[in-house]
């Protein structure tokens, strides 16, 4: 039983990071109906920037704020230069363009920060917490990760439901033409969505880097799991991305613990296929089957 709890606790931290990355994908999907495969590249790039800031100033907090800002700026750049000119109907064009950005960002990171894997200093104590006479594999740092994730979700929910900016974002995503007619400055709102997603992705990168290492390709696998989580969660749903993201982390941990870690991608694929057979539009989607 304690082993089972250990597995669950162990999956929680990585689940939160998958959830954040899935959240970034969902934010962009909601605002521009594009799946941004460059997201992990942006996150990697901003994490390198954060690392440079950290080495320079020695402060994790400054690095985190720097990453937030850099993530937003990079998101805006990608949206403005690459995605905006792509036609909204051109799904495969948009996908290809984001992959192009990913390849370019990884190459650029390899040029700017040579030397392969780099360590990101641990900002908080990452040793397990002792409780009831036993050390549990969850640390202060995990609580920081989970706490930041929860704060972000709360903030985003409030933004979307309580503020006029959030309402305009939803309107612009739902029907840009109607939104434009009702006075929403659609392109500005969409750009804000990209900035927001860029920041969320950057946070995910900065949070995962200390427990892993950072290299131009180190988040690649994260993309696959985050995308799977976002799709199962329904792409439109913040809560879907978060809960399925955490769930994916737990499943990976349990599968790795009880069978073999090599089974994790296979299990993820099976879950995805099963979900798409039973509920093609994702678990948390509000969409009904289209009628004529």
């Amino acid at each position, binding site marked *: 039983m304690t082993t089972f709890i250990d597995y669950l606790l162990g999956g929680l931290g990585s689940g939160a990071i998958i959830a954040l990355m899935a959240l970034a994908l969902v934010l962009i999907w909601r605002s521009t109906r594009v799946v941004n495969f460059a997201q992990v590249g942006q996150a990697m790039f901003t994490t390198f920037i954060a690392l440079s800031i950290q080495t320079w100033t020695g402060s994790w907090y400054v690095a985190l704020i720097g990453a937030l800002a850099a993530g937003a700026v990079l998101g805006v750049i990608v949206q403005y230069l690459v995605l905006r000119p792509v036609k909204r109907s051109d799904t*495969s064009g948009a996908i290809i363009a984001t992959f192009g950005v990913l390849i370019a960002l990884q190459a650029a990171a390899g040029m700017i920060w040579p030397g392969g894997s780099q360590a990101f200093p641990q900002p908080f104590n990452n040793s397990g917490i002792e409780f009831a006479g036993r050390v549990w594999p969850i640390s202060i740092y995990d609580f920081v990760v989970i706490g930041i994730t929860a704060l972000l979700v709360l903030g985003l929910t409030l933004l979307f439901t309580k503020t006029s900016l959030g309402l305009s974002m939803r309107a612009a995503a739902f029907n840009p033409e109607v939104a434009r007619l009702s006075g929403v400055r659609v392109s500005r709102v969409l750009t804000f969505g990209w900035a927001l997603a860029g920041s969320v992705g950057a946070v995910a990168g900065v949070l995962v880097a200390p427990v892993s290492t950072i290299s131009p390709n180190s988040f690649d696998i994260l993309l696959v799991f985050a995308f799977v989580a976002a799709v199962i969660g329904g792409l439109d749903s913040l809560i879907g991305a978060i809960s399925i993201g955490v769930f994916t982390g737990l499943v990976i941990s349990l599968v790795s613990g009880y069978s073999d870690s090599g089974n994790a991608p296979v299990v993820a694929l099976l879950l995805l296929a099963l979900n798409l057979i039973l509920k093609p539009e994702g678990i948390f989607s509000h969409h009904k089957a289209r009628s004529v």
Partner: protein
Amino acid sequence: MVNLLRLPGARFLSHLAIVFVIWAALMRINDGIDPLMSYYLALAAMYATAMFGMVILVGLSGQVSLGNGALMAIGGYVFALTSLNWQTVPILGWQWNPIWSMIFAGFGGIAVGLLIGWIGARLRGPYLAGLTLGIAVGIPAIATRFPEIFGGETGLMLTVPYPAGGYAPAAETVTIDEAPLAEVPLEQAPLDEVPLEQAPLEQAPLDTETAGAGDMLTADNFPSAESSPAAGDMLTADNFPSAESSPSALALPSESALPNDIDPTAAGDALLAGSAFVLERWQASLAVTAACIIGFFALNLVRGRQGRIWRAVRDDEVAAAVSGISPAGSKISAFVVSSFFAAIAGAVFAQILSYVGPGAFGLGLSLSLLVGVVLGGRASLGGAIIGGVLLVALPQLVFNIAGDRGWPANVTDNAPNLVYGLLVVLVVLIAPGGILGSLKDGTRRLLAKSRSAK
């Protein structure tokens, strides 16, 4: 007036003629180029084969697939496993040959295509992309899960199925003087019998104690530009690769450098002599032939009723349904066809690599196929051909541009990917119809201009 092209069988014959002309031209070209070019031709033809399926799936039926590389893996593994394990054709009992493996690979592709198409037909846009991404990652992972069958991460090595007769593979095998011996497998000479003290060297002192200061390389006596005439090129980091050492300059030894003692049996002769069996040339013929056969099917489908049906469902599912077309059926058929094409391409790939393994069929391959078909022009088969050529030529061109600029290693190494990524973005932005689409648009505009000028 009778339209000759509408006579029964005319489409068959005209398509056959088109494909035959291309086939004959490529085979002729293949005979005249050197082996490396033949190898690139083989790769391009293999990519084009898979991308014919992408044109149908992405261009005509409007479904995005990030997983066709994994469908190629199905073909590759079926090819490898059947040709490694089967001596006779099941049930029929005939002698096995690679053609059968190709056919079984195709069947494997059809079966998997049916399954994926069945799930995928209900999905739209990103959900379908999600499913296919899962397939791109999951299928190679399955191969590593069952190493006894699929050879795990290392994969399976194949002997290239040389065609019986017509070629002389022996011309290429080389014997070395002290041919190491067939009868001794892994077993090693017992270690104890070997003296473990290192044998003395004639030209150098044996141990640290006796090594004089002059024999030790130190920062002070490291040859510098002044001390050594040839050293100027070598010692500073900023002039790292000199023109002298550039790959193009060293491709062939200069005439004067050729020694006098000519040994006609030396390795490499066979590669350059025109008559002997050249592996790359054989691979190119195989790939070109497969591409032409698949291209013939694709041409018939695209320019026939099936092509119209796919486009109809892509344009308007509801209107297609009330016209008597099953949208799901049409999408599944597009998946099955593209999966069949991908599997054949995978079987060809297995023979070009003489190897199958999960690393060769990773997500990168799937993305390459999508990139290629979008760059070439996703709406027509010509786009697939151009895409196939681009996938081979583009990295090479970019590498040639980036290489030997005297940049630091980390810049040079990553420059090809940077340029490649930016190029992909640029083409999507500037020429959304791909290269072929832009050419068509350009000609149409020119024609319109000349017409209005009249």
